[in-house]
């Protein structure tokens, strides 16, 4: 029993924080380091975004996207012409075709990449 009392007493003594003269200065130093880390992280995220955008844009240009889009446009027009002859319903011919579809797909892909990047950055 006395043993337990002493151990509790010791825990209380350990819980008593010693008075240190520079407590406020210490808290400010921690706050500054937190702010510095936060600013660095924001710069890092921004830089990663710019780098990702540049890489993405260069990849799009280098992969001959615009030639493919033209080819896809003509294919879509051919397909659309074929569909008007074969489609039993009229609504199919009202779907956007050609370059518009490609642009929509590109926009959706960019949004998806942005979403994935955001999640990855949050996880980091």
């Amino acid at each position, binding site marked *: 029993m006395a043993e337990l009392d002493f*151990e509790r007493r010791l825990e209380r003594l350990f819980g008593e924080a*010693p008075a240190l003269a520079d407590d406020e200065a210490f808290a400010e130093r921690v706050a500054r*380091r937190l702010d510095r880390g936060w600013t660095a992280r924001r710069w890092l995220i921004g830089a990663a975004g710019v780098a990702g955008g540049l890489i993405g844009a260069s990849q799009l240009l280098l992969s001959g996207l615009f030639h493919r889009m033209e080819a896809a446009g003509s294919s879509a027009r051919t397909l659309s012409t074929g569909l008007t002859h074969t489609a039993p319903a009229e609504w199919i011919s009202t779907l956007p075709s050609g370059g518009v579809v490609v642009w929509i797909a590109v926009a959706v892909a960019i949004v998806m990449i942005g979403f994935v990047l955001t999640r990855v950055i949050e996880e980091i």
Partner: protein
Amino acid sequence: MASGRKLRFAQMHDLELCAQAVTGERAAFGELVRRHAPAVRGLLRRMGARAAEADDLAQDAFLAAFERIAEFRGDGTFAGWVKRIAARLYLRRLQRERRLAGMIEAPPLEAGRAEVEGRIDLDEGLKALSAAERLCVSLCFGAGLSHGDTAEALNLPLGTVKSHVKRGLDKLRARLASDGRPVAEGSPGDG
């Protein structure tokens, strides 16, 4: 505006501040630092860290706590959680700098060296312990680690840790008993 926020945070409970900090609210975490930094710095000094080293480690512990604040579930106190982080950081540093083995093997100090003008308190009492005893007692009673966790953290056999704790407690008991001063009840700062 900023002082109003500061005042609002000052009135919040630790758990509310932690919830705010999880959302990235650094001012809320700053309030937690203000409240508990003395306890964390004190523990590191009691474990044997020099003042500058203790402050350095305490800063690292609070930054690590902010990074991992979402992991704090409120099972224990926030102060206890940060103290454990700080204690482990200190042990890691001792191991990295190959100081831990030397500390553990160092012989105990001569009894009576810690006494200053007849006044004995915990800090003075701890000085009479060997480095290993001081580490074990501080980890168990200051950081709230179990004997098993302490043995794991120090990479020592459980029996050795229990022996260090027992010898340390015996020395402290003798000193604190001879002190004769009443011990303050309900220590602040662990909220």
